[in-house]
């Protein structure tokens, strides 16, 4: 058909975003969103049918990219829907909404770029672009918090991404020494085994440190927490799903590219250290803080850490599946948080309660969501964490399982404590009269959580096969 489909997608997206800025009527915005997601769907279908075909020289969709594209399409569409609902409830100005919607479209497009790029520099460029577009999303509320969050986020992201670029340059030093000028992942994979190990390690280290800010893991996790706190909840959902996946893709692709070299054990150790640190930071804060959104954000930190531990212990399949499941679960929770805030007008756990009486359907989402992010069966996250532990036990870092487990327990405690308080504690009198929520508004959340169950426990073999092929190295 047309091998320039991705390019058409990028062009189309930018056009749509542009039109969005100009045509501010609500109906038009909706229509444009429909157009955009149709385009995205078309891209998805296209990439699925042209798996592993290089397009426009630098783009290629492997199963990993297609899988993540699917996740992005689902969560992106829901975020768009909730974004519109959010704006309607707040009565935001048409200009503000239009800017936001355009930024959303651009953001998603940039993340698509991250997924399907096969060149290390292009991944970098798309990631930075996603930072910039997400800044507009985070800035949406235009209040003190969102300004601070946006500023910190953009700045630290820029620094991080600069550090990662240094890593890319180290890699190119190493490849230059082997007279290789191509920095596509395939080329790196082919030549990396003969490269200087020291440079490779440096490159990987810098890239992990730099991209950590995008994936939201240690060491640069802090600003992600702030961003998820300052942003509207549907944006937070995007940040802890598609953007986290984007960061993961950036790290994972380079990891896979270097997996054939002798530094694999070292990389695994680094991954596990990063993961462990992330889980550790999440653990110490989750039990302490009272801000619901930040609690969810720290839980994202934890799961990102788990994903990296899974990568480091060799459970790549589990890592990929886990990040997808987490994306669904966490976006569901963040979407639900919008209701929470509408009901209580506060983020703090301390001044809320009785959620199960005030908003029963939402309470169900909260309960199931809690199960999902604490990896309790029947949630699929249980399976992926099980795989992680299994890989960890059979690997050289078996002892890590103990601290990881202890920290997960602390996190479980912190999360469950807060969620239980929200659900059951008698509501203080300041709580506003229960806002009318239609059950329909919680259906997407339930659907996402059902997906977590389904993909973990009842996934059809074809799907499993597809995900598995996403983490096998193609020659």
């Amino acid at each position: 058909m047309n091998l320039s489909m991705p390019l058409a997608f990028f062009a189309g997206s930018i056009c749509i975003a542009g039109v969005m800025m100009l045509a501010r009527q609500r109906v038009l915005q909706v229509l444009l969103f429909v157009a955009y997601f149709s385009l995205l769907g078309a891209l998805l279908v296209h990439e699925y049918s042209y798996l592993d075909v290089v397009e426009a020289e630098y783009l290629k969709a492997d199963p990993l990219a297609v899988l993540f594209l699917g996740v992005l399409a689902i969560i992106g569409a829901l975020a768009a829907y909730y974004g519109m609902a959010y704006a309607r409830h707040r009565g935001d100005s048409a200009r503000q909404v239009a800017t936001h919607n355009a930024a959303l479209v651009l953001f998603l497009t940039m993340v698509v770029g991250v997924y399907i790029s096969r060149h290390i520099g292009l991944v970098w460029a798309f990631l930075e672009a996603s930072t910039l577009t997400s800044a507009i999303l985070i800035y949406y509320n235009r209040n003190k918090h969102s300004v601070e969050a946006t500023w910190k986020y953009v700045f630290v992201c820029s620094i991080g991404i600069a550090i990662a670029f240094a890593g890319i340059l180290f890699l190119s030093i190493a490849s230059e020494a082997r007279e290789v000028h191509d920095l596509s992942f395939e080329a790196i994979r082919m030549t990396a085994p003969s490269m200087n190990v020291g440079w490779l390690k440096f490159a990987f280290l810098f890239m992990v440190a730099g991209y950590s800010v995008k994936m939201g893991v240690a060491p640069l996790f802090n600003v992600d927490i702030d961003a998820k706190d300052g942003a509207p909840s549907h944006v937070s959902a995007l940040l802890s799903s598609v953007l986290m996946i984007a960061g993961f893709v950036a790290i994972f692709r380079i990891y896979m590219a270097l997996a054939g070299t002798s530094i694999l054990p070292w990389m695994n150790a680094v991954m596990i250290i990063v993961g462990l640190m992330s889980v550790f930071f999440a653990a110490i804060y989750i039990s302490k803080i009272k801000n619901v959104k930040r609690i969810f954000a720290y839980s994202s930190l934890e799961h990102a850490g788990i994903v990296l531990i899974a990568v480091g212990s060799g459970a790549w399949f589990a890592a990929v599946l886990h990040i997808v499941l987490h994306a669904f679960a966490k976006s569901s929770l963040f979407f639900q948080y919008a209701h929470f805030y509408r009901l209580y007008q506060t983020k703090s756990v301390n001044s809320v309660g009785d959620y199960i009486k005030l908003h029963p359907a939402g309470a169900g989402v909260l309960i199931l969501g809690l199960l999902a992010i604490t990896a309790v069966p029947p949630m699929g996250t249980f399976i992926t964490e099980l795989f992680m532990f299994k890989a960890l036990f059979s690997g050289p870092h078996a002892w890590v399982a103990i601290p990881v487990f202890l920290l997960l327990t602390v996190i479980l405690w912190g999360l469950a404590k807060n969620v239980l308080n929200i659900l059951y504690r008698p509501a203080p009198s300041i709580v506003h009269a229960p806002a009318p929520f239609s059950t329909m508004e919680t259906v997407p959340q339930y659907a996402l959580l059902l997906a977590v169950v389904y993909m973990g426990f009842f996934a059809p073999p074809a799907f499993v096969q597809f995900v598995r092929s996403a983490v096998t190295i193609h020659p």
Partner: protein
Amino acid sequence: MRISFILATMISAAMAALSIAWSVPVLVNGQAASFAYGPLVFAIDPLTAFMVVLINIGVLLGMVYGISYLRPYASKSFMEALVHAVAMVTLHGSMLAVTMMRDMVSLLIMWEIMSMSSFLLVLFEGEKARTRRVALSYFIQMHIGAFFLLLATMVLAGQTGSYTFEAMGLFYAQKPAWMLFLPLFLGFGMKAGFLPLHTWLPHAHPAAPSHVSGVMSGVMIKLGIYGILRTILFMHGDQSMLGVAILSVGIITGLYAILQAIVRNDLKRLLAYSSVENIGLLGISIGMAVLGTSIHNDVIATLGWTAVLLHMVHHMLFKVVLFQSAGNIYVATHTRNLNELGGLMRRMPKTITVFVLGALAICGLPPLNGFVSEFLMYAASIEGMKNSGAYFSIVNFFVLITLCLIGGLAIIAFTKAIGVGMLGEPRTEPARHATERSWFMRLPQQIAIGIMIVMAIVPQLMIASISAVIRSFSPNSDIVLASLMPTMTSLGIFNASLVGAVVVVLALRKIATRNAQRREGPTWGCGFTEADARLQYTSTTYADSTVQLISPVVRVHAHMHALNDADVFPHARTYTTDVVDVIEESTIQPPIAGINYALRRLAVFHTGSMRTYILYAFVFIIAIAVVTIMGVI
């Protein structure tokens, strides 16, 4: 509210009917059956079939009771009711599934679902801060228990490359058994409530609504025992040291828990500790059975396994009875504190009679079914003393002493519960105004009592019906059972005739006193004429003499202001006591306090200053570079 629960009960009943219909043939023929659903394989062997029957009876009794118990909770929201009903069915289903799984991973999944659904059930009265705290700590402890199981799974898979139970046999053949058994025991024992892993139990049971605590205590903790049994099923060779280890844990658990039960004033907590005590008894029996199997003494082994299996059913029945009766008392008086009860026998005689019968049974006294299983335990230990070398003789000697100490202490605990809480005069207004509950709220207990009586009168039939299970543990059990049957028959007849004798003597008494004058009057105050209900022995004082004997194990803190010389005209004073679980205080609380402290102290990373954030990346790179250069990673 109740509609969803009634619906849940119907679903559970259907589930029960299906699973029992499937299990009974297995129990009769001893032939295993199985079917696969996707990656899950549901299989029923005699042990599973036995558990299926036990679970179904316990859960259904609990749910029927729940229908009427939930009546006062009409104000609960739809979602709460739904969560409760769904959790109940899920608990039922997952418990059934746990017994049907044939590999560790599936078991672990079902196990977690079971923990999760019971957690939601405990949360029923989540508007109480205490309930939330307790439910949470329960959930956490179950999580830790699951980790041990996970550890065991990994150990198993690491050695044999397979997750199936059959691989356990392989493992035991290759490696020392404890390497696999220890994590398994810790995991399953956490659910069962072996010391020192019991700490969730005395909190979770009182916090849960009574129909749930009956199911949790009567049925769910048996799943822990089931896990241990399932593990042992694949053991072979000389595991006598393991047997002694289990037995010792059982002894410590039983003694400690019953001592704790004695000092508790909360009725349901007392019952919870008594559950732990019974788990201890089961542990002792398992230990003896393993010991018997190891030294190829079929008599001890058979007696031990029979005792384990029967006692599991027995304890399920009387614990359901006791918890539900306690629930009735709670509904009638809104308190579980024994010191606030009293005089209930005259006010709600049917409920309390049932409670007394349950207490008789749980103390292992004739003529009820508890006696049958305790009888078998004694028999096993006497056989153990009789038929083996000095070492095992002495071990079994300890068992014997423990059994009768536990028996005696249980009598203290339950006479306290009944005597203080239900007999005598009411101590508070709510107790004074307590009224009998409806027949529907008493029905499940009465059914259970009925089953208990049958089990007490025809124990030989009960043993015959589980002979397939016993055989799977001890292949030569048939011969032993054949010689045991006459004894059990006699025991049943004895039980029946004991009741008969009491009836006869009562009749004689009636005839003899038909002409005698009978009057009613106040209790004799020994010359003191102002006696009132507050002068009665309280729960605290009743336990005091025992506490004084064993003070280091059971610690009671008293809070009072002593009189001093300046108090010429002393004003009103209070004296309160509270009891601490020494093990909980010394093993669970310090680490938690430590973790909390550490978490508070460590929470210094999110400073709000962006500069430090960037520093982290810098430090990270340097640190990794340093450890790389040093060759650490």
